[in-house]
């Protein structure tokens, strides 16, 4: 996300702090504002690539900020952060022009992934491929190409690998993976994630017999896309 300019409007300083830190770690430039009115002013004056907006704000409500912006012809992507998770709030946000909606509590990594997807959606074509260095995923055929190996993954395997590729190097916990890939938010007392990762590794190792793998397990924490292996 090098050079991406993010305007963060969030009154809760403690939240703003780690969000800013997380975003800056990816190379983004973050401007943080704590109230709606100032936020609107900054948003109108400066050119940001993406706006991350809280709804409950002093001086001016986040939804009003968004409406004003859209009315003034500003079409930059907006991601709403909100403690409200009701369907109406979600619908209202999207009606008023939000591009995405992230309920609190959220993972910063998730926010980064959404920002990426939004900025890329605008800057490049919506391709059927996810590519990171020499790892290539074909979204249509579920084919993976890596180091000369080409294999087809099962839907779960493919989804898991794709999830890790959203943020190469970032460690995703088993719960996060379970929630994203299997859509379950309880702990099924299972090692299904490990089994699935193992299967991906086997499929990508089958031919050349090397132990190298694009997925690295981090003891006691989870899995990440191993950026070093992909160099």
């Amino acid at each position, binding site marked *: 996300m090098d050079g991406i300019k993010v305007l963060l409007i969030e009154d*809760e300083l*403690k*939240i703003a702090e*780690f*969000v800013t*830190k*997380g975003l800056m*770690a990816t190379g983004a430039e973050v401007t943080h504002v704590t109230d709606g009115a100032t936020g609107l002013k900054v948003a109108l004056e400066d050119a940001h690539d993406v706006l991350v907006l809280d709804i409950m704000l002093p001086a001016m409500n986040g939804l009003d900020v968004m409406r004003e912006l859209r009315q003034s012809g500003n079409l930059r992507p907006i991601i709403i952060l909100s*403690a*409200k*998770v*009701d*369907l*109406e709030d979600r619908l209202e946000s999207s009606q008023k022009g939000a591009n995405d909606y992230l*309920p*609190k*509590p*959220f*993972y*910063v*990594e998730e926010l980064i992934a959404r920002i990426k997807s939004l900025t890329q959606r605008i800057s490049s074509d919506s391709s059927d491929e996810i590519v990171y260095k020499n790892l290539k995923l074909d979204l249509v055929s579920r084919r993976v190409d890596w180091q000369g190996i080409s294999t087809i993954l099962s839907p*779960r395997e493919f989804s898991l690998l794709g999830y890790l590729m959203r943020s190469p190097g*970032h*460690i995703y*916990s088993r*719960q996060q993976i379970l929630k994203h890939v*299997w*859509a*379950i*938010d*309880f*702990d*099924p*007392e*299972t090692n*299904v994630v490990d*089994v*699935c990762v193992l299967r991906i590794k086997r499929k990508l190792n089958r031919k050349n017999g090397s132990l190298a793998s694009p997925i690295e397990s*981090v*003891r*006691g*924490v*989870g899995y990440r896309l191993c950026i070093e292996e992909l160099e």
Partner: protein
Amino acid sequence: MKLSFKLVLFINVFISAVVIIIANRFAINIFLPLQIKEQLKIELIAYVEECGEFLPDKEGFQSCIRSSKKMSLIKGFTGRYVVCSEKMNVVENAICNPFFSKEVPWSSVQNISNKEIQYTEIETIEAQWMAANFYGSTKERTFVLLSIDEVSLEVSRMLRAYRDKNTVYVLPIILLLIFMMTWHIFNVAMRPIREINKSITTLDFKTFEIKTALVAPYKEFLNIVDSFESLRLRLIQSFEKARRFASDASHELRTPLTILRGNAEALIKDLANGSDEQIRMQMVVSEIDRLVTITQKLLWLSRADANKLQPVFQEINLSDVMGQWVLDAQTFNTNIKVTGEIQPKVMWKCDPDLIHQLIGNLYDNAVKYNVAKGWIHFQLRQDDHRFYLSIENPSSPLPADFEKQAFDRFYRADDARSRSIDGLGLGLSLCQEIAAVHEARLDVKVYDEGIVIFTLTNIT
């Protein structure tokens, strides 16, 4: 089995009517002889007045009465008259004797120039008599006796005979009338109850709203209606408070949870991969995630209570969804044998996310309360437009009230055990709310040997 109030009311009114009729008959039996006696007195005096001239000639007296224009009760009993005369030496009947005594309390009834009529009643050992004394122009004492008992008995017997003869025809009609009256009274009495009932049954147990306004039909019902209404309003208030509390709490918790998780996430990133500190921090994140799930469930439930659990309907192939669940479940836990029996092409219009949540909760439950080396069996079958989705598993012994209380909020089958297991007893309650917004039904049945089956049916 409760008795029908209808029936009780009906029987009571009917019995009362019958009792009234019987009481009436008894009353007649008491008062009829008195009335007859009174009538006899009047008639005796009237005949003596009209035909007294013939006395003491009994034949003449009787034929005079017979030819009299007056209609009367005792005309037919003229043969029963005993005529006594002072002048006649031979007294016709020994009964006359007591009447000649000075102590007889004669009372004068009529006193016209040439005749005087007196009347008295006397009781002898044999019977009760009434007597009319007649002083004609000769001023000779002659009197006529009539046995009250004999005649009144005879008369009342006759009257009763007529009445009984009538009863055969009249009784069915009377009964029918009683029946109709009872029916009418019953309907009148039931009407206000029916009205109140009609209104109360429209009570929505979730919102406590009443569709048909509850109005007291009569003043006697004002108290009941008022009490019910204030109870209902109190319920609405406290329910709303509780709901809002759950909703506010889960909203309020979001900010601190976000901060906790955000910082923990940042720390994990900073710490050396695989270090103990990182692992420990990951444990913190796991616990935060659990808290997030609990607040999420609380929020969903409070939304369901406010009728705000708005599903986004979409036609899905339930068979595919269940097939995937069986496949996933088979890989989730190798200690539990998962089998499936899924009828293909079962379509359902539902909110896929909510249904996923529902099945997930049921599956989660089936895993957590399973026995060692246990199993889970998924089944989906359809007949006509009705499908049955069931999840079956053996369970450790469950309390007897499990079937009734399984869906109660915060209910836990086994306190000691469930405390070690995740959750607050919100999952099943949420499942039922999700079923409800789909107009589906979720039931639980516990069979012998502790087999538990949860079944979802698309019919309420």
